């Protein structure tokens, strides 16, 4: 257990007056209050330290004990035993914190003072803080509903991610945010998805887009090509005299629609006709023959 210098925490001198303590506390509390620093765990930690320091230093009894035994906190218990009078309940006047909890205090504090007097004060129930997290997934991961376990503040959260979630989409997981205070409800967890496209398709909602190079002869005469889709390879018939840039829709071969089980978008294929290069002599002659037909 580490000794905590409460004067250092509040950035004040050991000779600080009650007014100085109150002023320093207010200044730092305004700076680090969790509501003014959303999703900032460092600020929350600092706020708890400030809160704890104020709890001790703004109470003359506790401050006296801290000043006497602070560095030798191990003797504090003996000191307590030696005292015949009971522990003073609460403190008169003073500036009280509404969002503090006994469990927010350090082991050092607990060993010296055995808990917070604040819990006997205003028993207001607060909803816990909302948390935000980002989850990175590949596009292929979200083709089907995806189960994932998140580790948040040492708590495991099992999550089923619906197929077809969008890049940048945020979902709310009720009750998995910060713990409520004084029996208040827990906050919520907001997860924003960052979807990395690890495929050759372009995605727009549930529709997918792909460009396919087509040999000139297949475009002119028609034929069959094999196309990669997210479900595997499919064979496609190409119509004769297919034009450059023409599009074909493969119904239901797109991406799953979000929260619409069994429904899929479409796959749009754009044909780019590949002009031949490095023609052989024979091929050139054949083209010359074609040219004679005013093609």
């Amino acid at each position: 257990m580490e000794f905590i210098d409460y004067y250092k925490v509040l950035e004040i001198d050991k000779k600080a007056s009650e007014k100085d303590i109150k002023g320093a506390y207010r200044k730092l509390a305004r700076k680090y209050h969790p509501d003014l620093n959303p999703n900032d765990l460092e600020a929350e930690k600092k706020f708890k330290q400030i809160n704890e320091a104020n709890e001790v230093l703004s109470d003359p009894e506790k401050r006296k004990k801290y000043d006497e035994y602070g560095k030798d906190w191990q003797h504090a218990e003996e000191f307590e035993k030696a005292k015949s009078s009971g522990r003073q309940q609460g403190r008169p006047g003073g500036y009280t914190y509404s969002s503090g909890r006994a469990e927010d205090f350090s082991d050092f504090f607990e060993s010296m003072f055995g808990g917070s007097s604040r819990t006997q004060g205003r028993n207001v129930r607060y909803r816990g803080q909302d948390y935000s997290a980002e989850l990175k997934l590949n596009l292929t991961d979200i083709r089907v509903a995806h189960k994932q376990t998140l580790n948040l503040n040492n708590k495991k959260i099992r999550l089923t991610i619906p197929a077809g979630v969008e890049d940048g989409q945020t979902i709310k997981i009720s009750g998995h945010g910060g713990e409520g205070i004084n029996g208040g409800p827990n906050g919520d967890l907001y997860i924003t998805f960052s979807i990395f496209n690890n495929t050759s398709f372009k995605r727009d909602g549930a529709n997918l887009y792909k460009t396919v190079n087509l040999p000139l002869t297949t475009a002119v005469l028609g034929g069959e090509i094999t196309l990669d889709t997210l479900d595997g390879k499919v064979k496609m018939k190409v119509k004769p005299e297919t034009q450059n840039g023409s599009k074909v829709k493969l119904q239901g071969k797109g991406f799953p629609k979000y929260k619409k089980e069994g429904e899929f978008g479409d796959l749009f294929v754009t044909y780019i006709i590949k002009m031949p290069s490095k023609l052989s002599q024979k091929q050139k002659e054949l083209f010359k023959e074609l040219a004679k037909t005013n093609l």
Partner: protein
Amino acid sequence: METRKYIAISDFCDSHRIDESFVFALSEFEIVQINYSEEQPFFHLDELPKLEKMVRLHHDLNINIDGLEAIHHLLEKIEKLNEELTVLKRKLNRFEGH
């Protein structure tokens, strides 16, 4: 168990030991939205986190209504900027990745 979607202002103020005028003042500054039924004023459950945040700031930091309004707008602005930052970071990652 059915969840209540609306909370009477009087219930909220009783449980938080605050005066109803505080909530009405927040409503005048358009920080929270109050609805009125024939029986009593109430607010939607979605407004609760915002309202509780305002009560905490008011009690913990002695911030008055004018200050709360300024904080409310600045927090909204921060949230919006953070969202923009997330989108831009993602775009940058995509750009750098290819």
